[in-house]
């Protein structure tokens, strides 16, 4: 099926057998309604946000290469530790959609936003998004607007910061050992 | 009539026997439930866990007795005492033997041989309910209040059916005296035959009246934590629990007395032993029901009580009266 008619479509990516539709955040609701009503994606499986702060820079968590893109290991299933492709904005917000029909087609509706940039809530389109979007706001600080009940969900109401952001410190307690030197 | 000091000795003996009975009912319940569920049950304290009730008692007595901050203290303390006292008093009228002639005194088979024994039983039963309600209210906790509400509604409504179920027996025996009722059963037949419907109603209503599963709504632990005794701990809780078990024993004793011929058995000299055996069987059925049945819901319970049990019990009493009049 072709997704060309999706309003606000910026880019269509196909990777690992998954289709990603990148849309303009301003036209997210239109795109969501279009996908739900025209393509039958009535089932919102998940809403995930990812923070790409420091993506591809040196010494970020999980990156062992250098910004120059040095190949640490030559091809193998191990992959290359080269600099990953740059991302358009800081946060990605992915809506994983499923159509309950034979073949189980799935599509990822993705939108890119900067810190504080408003994203319209999709609760009106898929009621299940209620808690998912609260979680996205709570842990990632994505500014979901027009949500019927946008309060923190997993953390206390007076929590400061959004822990899943890359600039949020990891913290933790030191592991206790005997102290012997 | 017995002299006063025989009554005192009997009363002392019976109270202690009932208390031992209560202790070992808890043991038997745990043991039987365990075996029905593929477990061993209590087996640490003494052989077969026989000392478990005593260990429990020691634990409960040694626990800190606390008050919830906002509880109404006097009532909070009084509630379990009221319930237990009423429950223990009730047993005084249950006849457990035919009566004996010892030296120069006639000793009757119950602590008090009251002519209106049945009325006394119900009166004391109603009094005991106050303990539960006051306890729930005085704790000033939402769960306890809910439990007290449920207790109030359930126990009061099932008491009606319970009394009406007994009415059939009363009409048939022409007496409210339990000794008299048992004597009559010994002479003719046990009343569970002609009063089968009455017996079933008595048993069901009795289960509800003692809040045993499947009618254990006042303390349904998964819904309202522990109902009226949510805020109780230590021996105060122990007293509530004692009241419930003693109520269950009393009710079983009443069932045996009213429907299964009391102390009568194939060989009459064994009187109290027959009574005990029958009592144990009824208690076993109570425990068995707990293992086998899920709990009812509040509205279903009320509907069952008012729409099924009450009409049937009324009808039963009415029919019995008609038959008795017709036979005469």
């Amino acid at each position, binding site marked *: 099926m072709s997704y060309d008619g999706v309003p606000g479509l910026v880019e269509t990516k196909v*990777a*690992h057998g998954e289709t990603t539709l990148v849309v303009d955040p301003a036209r997210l609701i239109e795109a969501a309604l279009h996908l*739900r*009503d025209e393509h*039958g994606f*009535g089932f*919102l499986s*998940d809403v*995930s946000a*990812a923070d790409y702060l420091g*993506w*591809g820079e040196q010494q970020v*968590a*999980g990156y*062992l*290469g250098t910004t120059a893109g040095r190949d640490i290991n030559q091809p193998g*299933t*191990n*992959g290359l*530790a080269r600099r*990953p492709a740059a991302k358009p904005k800081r946060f990605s917000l992915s809506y994983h959609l499923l159509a*309950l*029909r*034979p*073949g*189980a087609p799935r599509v990822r509706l993705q939108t890119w936003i900067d810190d504080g940039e408003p994203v319209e809530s999709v609760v009106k*389109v*898929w*009621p*299940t998004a*209620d*808690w998912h979007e609260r979680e996205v706001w709570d*842990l990632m600080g994505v500014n979901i607007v027009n949500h019927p*009940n946008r309060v*923190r969900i*997993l*953390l206390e109401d007076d929590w400061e910061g959004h*822990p899943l952001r890359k600039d949020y410190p*990891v913290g933790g307690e030191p592991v206790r050992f005997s102290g012997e030197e | 009539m017995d002299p006063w000091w025989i009554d005192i000795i009997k009363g002392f003996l019976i109270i202690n026997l009932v208390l031992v009975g209560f202790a070992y009912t808890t043991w038997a319940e745990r043991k039987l*439930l365990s075996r029905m*569920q*593929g*477990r061993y049950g209590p087996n640490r304290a003494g052989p077969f866990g026989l000392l478990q009730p005593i260990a429990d008692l020691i634990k409960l007595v040694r626990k800190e007795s606390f008050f919830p901050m906002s509880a109404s203290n006097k009532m909070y303390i009084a509630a379990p005492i009221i319930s237990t006292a009423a429950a223990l008093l009730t047993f005084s009228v249950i006849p457990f033997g035919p009566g004996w002639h010892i030296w120069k005194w006639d000793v009757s088979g119950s602590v008090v041989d009251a002519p209106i024994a049945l009325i006394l039983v119900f009166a004391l039963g109603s009094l005991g309910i106050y303990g539960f309600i006051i306890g729930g209210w005085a704790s000033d906790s*939402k769960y306890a209040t*809910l439990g007290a*509400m449920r207790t109030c509604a359930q126990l009061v409504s099932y008491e009606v059916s319970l009394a009406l179920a007994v009415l059939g027996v009363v009409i048939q025996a022409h007496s409210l005296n339990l000794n008299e009722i048992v004597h009559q059963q010994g002479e003719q037949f046990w009343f569970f035959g002609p009063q089968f419907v009455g017996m079933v109603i008595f048993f069901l209503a009795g289960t509800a009246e003692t809040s045993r*599963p*499947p009618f*254990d709504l006042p303390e349904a632990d*998964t*819904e*309202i934590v522990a109902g009226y005794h949510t805020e109780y701990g230590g021996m105060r809780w122990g007293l509530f629990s004692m009241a419930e078990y003693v109520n269950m024993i009393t009710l079983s004793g009443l069932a045996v007395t009213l429907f299964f011929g009391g102390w009568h058995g194939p060989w009459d000299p064994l009187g109290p032993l027959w009574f005990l055996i029958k009592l144990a069987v009824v208690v076993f059925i109570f425990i068995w029901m*707990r*293992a*086998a*049945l*899920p709990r*009812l819901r*509040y509205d*279903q319970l009320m509907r069952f009580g008012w729409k099924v049990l009450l009409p049937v019990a009324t009808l039963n009493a009415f029919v019995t009266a008609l038959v008795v009049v017709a036979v005469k």
Partner: protein
Amino acid sequence: MATVERRTKPIYEGTRIPSPVPTILAVPERLRANDDIQQINFGPNHPSTHGVLRLVVDLDGELVVGLRAVIGYLHTGFEKTMEQKTWWKCITYPERIDYLAFQSNELVFVLAIEKLLAMEIPEKATWMRMCLLELNRIHSHLVWLGTACLELGAISMFWYTFRERDQILDLFEMVCGTRMHTRYFQAGGLAEDIPEGFYEEAWKLVAQMPKGVDQYEDMIDQNRIWLERTKGLGLLSAEDAIALGQSGPALRASGVDWDLRRDQPYLFYDRVYFDVCVRENGDVWDRYKVHMDEMRQSTRIVAQCLEQLQKLDDGAPWIADDRKVVLPPREELHTSMESLIHHFKIVTEGYRVPEGEVYVTIESARGEMGCYVVSDGGAKPWRVKFRAPSFVALQATATCMNDALIADMIAIAGSLDTVMGEVDR
């Protein structure tokens, strides 16, 4: 097959979802004005909340008129922690999220890694994964059944279900070394070969399980009280269930014929025979029946997996032979320098996973378990997000709760089969 047609009307209209906020049951203003509402906190510590769930309930007498679930008491920040660990170490984390269906959580993460790495998995590993997954499903359903019955006062069931559950845990211990949290699935296959004696013990369980399910059904299936306590309660229409993103038994009990094992086959689910259990009414009773039927079907799948496993050669590989990802065989460590280097590299730095983002879903015991993974090509995941079926299932409590009494609320919340560890992650 699924029957959901293209919609022309928005789903949100015409459903019974009670309030503008779909996850909150709001108290009607009429009742609010009476000032006769009692607000009760069910939990975080309450005998019937599995784990630490807090339900703020508004009661009118015994009637539940308002309900709001407060979660987060078990939030442990797994997702953040996993960003700090190498892929290899991360495998030990997801299984601790849902402590009842640990194998499925583990599998979904491992499948995500394998999808990014584009790895080929040996046949033996795939069959064994399916076998353990279905055993795990039975295990999870057994715990659900036991606790759900306990909540409705049928106390004996708890011990009967735990009898079979223990057998399953014994199998896990035999295969994986621990009874829960097994870390048995590794990227590329299984951590170790299947031990001797596993098949024998597993066949015993396969023989025992239907008898066990029969016994459970004898206990409650036709029990008058059980029927009255479960029938017609906690209704969730098919439309609502989809709108609220329900999955797994809750969705199938609402009459939606949807099972990822059949409709989106992963592993070898397209090579085994099983029925998808669907019920029409969407009440507590139907959810219970779906669980019961699924236990039977899972036993069937386990039997087929065992047959297939026993057909394979003894020496069949259980893990892919990929030295960049999989730890080299232990016997090579003392003889091969290259293997030792690979071993050191994998253990210290971890393997690198190519850049990309994937969303993998499987049908866990509770429903659609999803895992969204972003990799930047490094040795640690950039972002891991789990789509927890319990999290979604808990959203439906408010919708199910129309005209329910307190006792029903317990039954309904229980029937949605939530595991708080998974809800809060």
